[in-house]
């Protein structure tokens, strides 16, 4: 009996190892985006093409690191990131295979890498979420006003490791001088007094419940909250819209084909699907982001992209200047 159990255990161990070795041929996607946003797209793609897709989920940054470490041994065919910074970083490291212009030319050039090694699929705007109940933050017209001491204890921002946050700071640094950004960070640091949020959704919640008066978030978090609570006392304010203002910071989520992929034909099909009208509509709907392809309508209630000014910073800068941004954030000691 006892020996039976032991040999069973040993056999199982061997079997477990065996199962791992036998793997079917399929498209492997390293996905740094939430499963719930990628899965509907994958499902639609598999239904259409019969190509099986394995999602390997994780944080965009960690997966890019994994791709780099694995080198030509990586099984990844595609890399999906929620941030242009990682995409450009991967391009700089030579991890991606540039795509044919024909494949992605429907996407405007400023949402792609110079050499087409990655393509932006959906964009998000850094906006202000403001309480409609108290007027203490009504004077804020620019993100730089968030450093105003009048907002002490009333400001909600995420911790400085957040990819969207870092990307936003990069945009502000490209559109202004470093000194101004440093002072701004220092002002916000004193306003939040060590208490930052680990999620954008929690900032929106805090503003809605009156615990904070204003927050800096990606636009779709506000709509997600309004979905659940349509009467929540919050509104979106587009910052930096004055004549000499820099405009709203944008960031794109996107995809790239891994350099060592032996499945590039199938990978290209997946890219083609994601930039197609059907694919772009899915992106617009599931997360209320801006489809990067022209002519695809944005989801209901989302302010049209033509209705406000967007900061004139190429998306690839988010990768090129990421380490410089991290240096500034760390020098200020943002929590």
């Amino acid at each position, binding site marked *: 009996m006892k020996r039976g159990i032991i040999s069973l*255990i*040993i056999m*199982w*161990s061997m*079997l*477990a*190892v065996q*199962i*791992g*070795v036998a*793997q079917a041929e399929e498209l*492997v996607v390293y996905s740094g985006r*939430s*499963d*719930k946003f990628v899965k509907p797209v994958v499902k639609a793609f598999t239904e259409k093409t019969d190509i099986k897709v*394995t*999602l*390997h*989920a*994780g*944080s965009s*940054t*960690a997966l890019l*690191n*994994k791709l*780099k*470490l*694995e*080198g030509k*041994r990586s*099984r*990844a065919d595609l890399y999906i990131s929620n941030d242009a910074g990682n995409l450009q*970083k991967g391009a700089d*490291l030579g991890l991606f295979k540039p795509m044919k212009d024909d494949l992605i030319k429907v996407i405007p050039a400023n949402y792609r890498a110079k050499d087409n090694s990655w393509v932006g699929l959906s964009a998000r705007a850094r906006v202000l979420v403001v309480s409609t109940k108290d007027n203490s933050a009504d004077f804020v017209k620019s993100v730089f006003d968030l450093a105003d001491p009048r907002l002490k204890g009333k400001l909600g921002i995420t*911790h400085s*490791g957040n990819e969207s946050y870092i990307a936003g700071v990069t945009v502000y640094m490209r559109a202004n001088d470093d000194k101004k950004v440093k002072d701004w960070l220092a002002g916000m640091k004193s306003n939040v007094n*060590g*208490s*930052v949020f*680990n*999620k954008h*959704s*929690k900032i929106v*919640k*805090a503003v809605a*419940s009156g*615990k904070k008066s204003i927050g800096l978030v990606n636009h779709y978090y506000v709509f997600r909250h309004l979905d659940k609570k349509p009467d929540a006392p919050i509104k979106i304010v587009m910052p930096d819209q004055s004549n000499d203002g820099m405009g709203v910071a944008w960031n794109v989520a996107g995809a790239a084909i891994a350099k060592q992929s032996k499945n590039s034909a199938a990978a290209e099909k997946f890219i083609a699907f994601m930039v197609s009208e059907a694919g772009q509509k899915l992106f617009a709907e599931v997360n209320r982001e801006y489809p990067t392809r022209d002519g695809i309508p944005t989801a209901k209630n989302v302010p049209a992209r033509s209705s406000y000014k967007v900061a004139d910073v190429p998306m690839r800068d988010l990768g090129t200047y990421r*380490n410089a941004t*991290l240096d500034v954030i760390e020098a200020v000691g943002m*929590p």
Partner: protein
Amino acid sequence: MVKILSTRSVLSTSVVLLASIPLIYVLINSGQLSIPQWSNLWSARLPGLLWNTLTLAILVAIGSFVLGVSSAWLITRREFIGRRVATWLMILPLTIPTYVFAHIYTSLTESSGWLGQLWTMIFGPEIQNPELYNVFGVAFVLSIAGFSYVFLLVSDALTRSRVDIEEAARLHGLNSRQVFWRISLPMLRPAIAAGLALVVLHVLSDFGAVSMLRYQTFTLSIYLQMSGRFDLQAAAGLSLVLVLLSLTFLILERFFRDRQRYYSAAQAQRMKRRPASKTEMVLIWSWLGGITLFAFALPVTWMLAWSWEAWQLDLITEEFWGYVKNSISISVAAATFATIAALPVALFHARLRNKISQSYLHMASIGFVLPGPVIALGILSFVLSTLPFIYGTIIVLVLAMLIRFLPLAVQAQEASVQQLSPSIEEAGRSLGASPWENLRRVTIPVLRTGLVSAWVLVFIDTLKELPATLLLRPTGFDTLPVRIWIEASEEMLELAAPAALMLMLGTLPVLWFLMRQHDASTR
């Protein structure tokens, strides 16, 4: 005789070499740092990291000491209703990983969480409810997650301790408080040191809780260096400092443990538990109940509530059972191979008991002093450069778990190897048993307890392992911890909860088995 010795030495040498892969990786990479880079690292990062890490370690040590020693003392020295249950309640927190504790307590203390609402009810909405994103929050989480180690070792020592000395002290006129502080506590020092060292090592290498609570310790900073900035050399440099820090703790612990021999040498008199009075019983249970509430009951209620939600929404799909299967397969495999790999090292030490075998034991403990992300990285680059064809398979993951948790297996077996005097083995040989038969019929049965504990300990820790699994799992091979990690970072509570619940349930049977065996040996 010579032949066995050589087999053992060859086998144990190869196991030790395998175990030192991550350390070699760290040495090679940090060796590439130039002097200016080192001094930059030294001035810019180390003071802050040292301060953060050490204050956290000290706070957790204090927390675990208070929780672990008090509960162990009450349970071993007083007879009260539900004492057996209480023992169980004190070790059950081991079934919940630190990152699950961290995740649950952050959602409980939010203003909309159970504890947050309670806070607002008591103190009103003006007073900000406490947050966990600071050293005290992290210390709280790691203390309730780790005090059970102190409890286990101290209650063990208390059961075996020599009551006659305490009685002698009492006869000489010391009151019970004096007896506790001047006699019992000093005698417990080795067990407390061992327990606290275990807790501190867990603190130093913890990845899940500190990254969820964003508290910059060495381990988190190393992870951020390598995955955020792609700076592998700085990560290796920091790892090297962490290794030195951990080694200091290990040496301190050995120092205290070596003294144990003086105390437990003599035949101990059987200890009698004093029946508790009614008032005492109320006090005992309110203390133990309070610990249980925070370290087990509340988290489990949370898991059950959200799992129920998931069940109602039909979210427990086939995929979920796939994660369960993956988790169990990898844990069974890692536990089995680690137990087998630890055997030659333990036996080698049992036979030789010299400096070399001692140093082998230390070398096999590398998995304990290096953080998970670094071990994973070391194995990744080793496999890619020497055995690229196994990369991407589950073998790599099993190898990582084996190296990471080998110290547990070795330590568990070392304890029972102590009972294996060379004369027992020689008797077997002289009665005509072949080396193989001797191993099977004499050595293994003597070591059975140690082998089982080794297997169980590695199983439990592999089941909960996060950072190395994140990096090394084959594509699409998600385990329960990986899913908890992903769902928790997306705020999908109803998906994280059932996974956490399954982890806990998966640990229970093996823990029960371990405790039963433990009871049998102390009875």
